[in-house]
């Protein structure tokens, strides 16, 4: 069978963020990556208190400031203006990464280029020789945060699987990913392979398996 790339099957980016937000426990300290992961904050169910950490030195990051209220000295890791919640705290970079490396942050949600069956993550470089290598805090986050969630489209724009047997891009971390939220399914990384936790409405197990370059387990 041929896959129709434009077929609007599966979850939208907003729905992926919403689904991931359901898995953020009450009372968690959470670090959100740039892009779709940022949207997770909007969808954490009411009644749960979650504290957001940004690695450039703020615990208790609030929402985006209203126009005209931006402060160039109050930004997030993506260098965008943010606000603080009541009860926020500032600290220097070594303390910030002590929170990460020392396993004090509970959950990190980030994007991916590739995730392997073993939970290896590649999300910082395509390894092309003329690319300017830039890693930021990604390697520290995946090595130190207790639970690593990845949000990503199931396939690349040209239809190649992003869930693979082993990563071909340079790694960010080895055996670090716990759960993956794609447009097609929620998938856990387990010793027996990619285990499907939930399928998006109208998406079958076989449909996901055809778009996954690793062993999918029901």
């Amino acid at each position, binding site marked *: 069978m041929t896959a129709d790339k434009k077929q609007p099957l599966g979850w939208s980016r907003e729905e992926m963020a919403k689904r991931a937000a359901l898995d953020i426990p009450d009372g968690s300290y959470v670090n959100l990556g740039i892009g779709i992961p940022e949207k997770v904050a909007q969808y954490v169910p009411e009644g749960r208190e979650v504290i957001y950490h*940004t*690695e*450039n*030195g*703020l615990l208790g990051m609030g929402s985006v400031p209203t126009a005209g209220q931006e*402060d*160039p*000295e*109050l*930004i997030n890791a993506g*260098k965008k203006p943010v606000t*603080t919640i009541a009860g926020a705290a*500032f*600290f*220097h*970079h*070594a303390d*910030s*990464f*002590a929170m*990460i*490396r020392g396993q004090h942050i509970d959950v990190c949600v980030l994007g991916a280029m590739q995730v392997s069956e073993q939970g*290896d993550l590649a999300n910082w470089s395509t390894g092309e020789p*003329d690319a*300017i*290598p*830039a*890693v*930021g*805090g*990604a*390697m*520290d986050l995946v*090595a*130190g945060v207790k639970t690593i969630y990845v949000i990503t489209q199931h396939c690349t724009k040209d239809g190649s699987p992003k869930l693979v047997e082993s990563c071909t891009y*340079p*790694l*960010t*971390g*080895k*055996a670090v990913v716990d759960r993956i939220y794609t447009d097609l399914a929620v998938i856990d990384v387990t010793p027996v392979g990619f285990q499907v936790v939930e399928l998006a409405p109208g998406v079958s197990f076989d449909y996901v398996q055809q778009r996954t370059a690793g062993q999918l387990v029901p």
Partner: protein
Amino acid sequence: MIDKRIDSLAAAVADVFDGATVMIGGFGEAGNPIELIHALIDQGAKGLTVVNNNTGSGHVGLAALIENGQVAKMICSYPRTVGSKVFPELYRSGKIELELVPQGTLAERIRAGGAGVPAFYTATSVGTPLAEGKEQRHFDGRDYVMEYGLKADFALIKCLQADRYGNLIYNKTARNFAPIMAMAADKTIVQTVTLVEAGEIDPEIVVTPGIFVDRVVTVANPAQESKLVAEGRNYP
């Protein structure tokens, strides 16, 4: 009497020598000591190794220091910020060296350097290209790579308030690398927005104790890098 106040930016950076390692505070433009960097451009020291999380943007501040040919090597975690044009061009043409360090490892290397710790082990980067060639050890069932503490000849940082002893407090997320760079440098040079009498900063809220600071120069109205970039400004 201890008095770390200095009258001019030029005097504050006068002894930066060719080939020095210079740590520059800031994460993007937040905490970026732009007036001190411009003074270093005027001063002209060359062959510098600069430690900063990024490589500046536009043609002012750190980007201008690089563009002026004063930087031989950058040690940073993220050299390609939006609006960063100078570094990528020089890097692609082989005219500047890059040591890429994960952000948390960079912070801890600086902290260790300032705390007299020559090296340490971290799980960050294990199994990735950034661990290649580094000593590895196994502790409690996990692999770690050895990373070296990082020291500098000079640190240029910005703060919100200082006194003559060099006690400092910062503004929001502009704090970032400044407190640890102040610890890791032989000479720490600070630009402060306000200077107050000793005792006016409550000892309970001092972030950088004065022992880590050598010179304090007041810049009451620091320029905002993103504004200069938006206006298409160049330095010099």
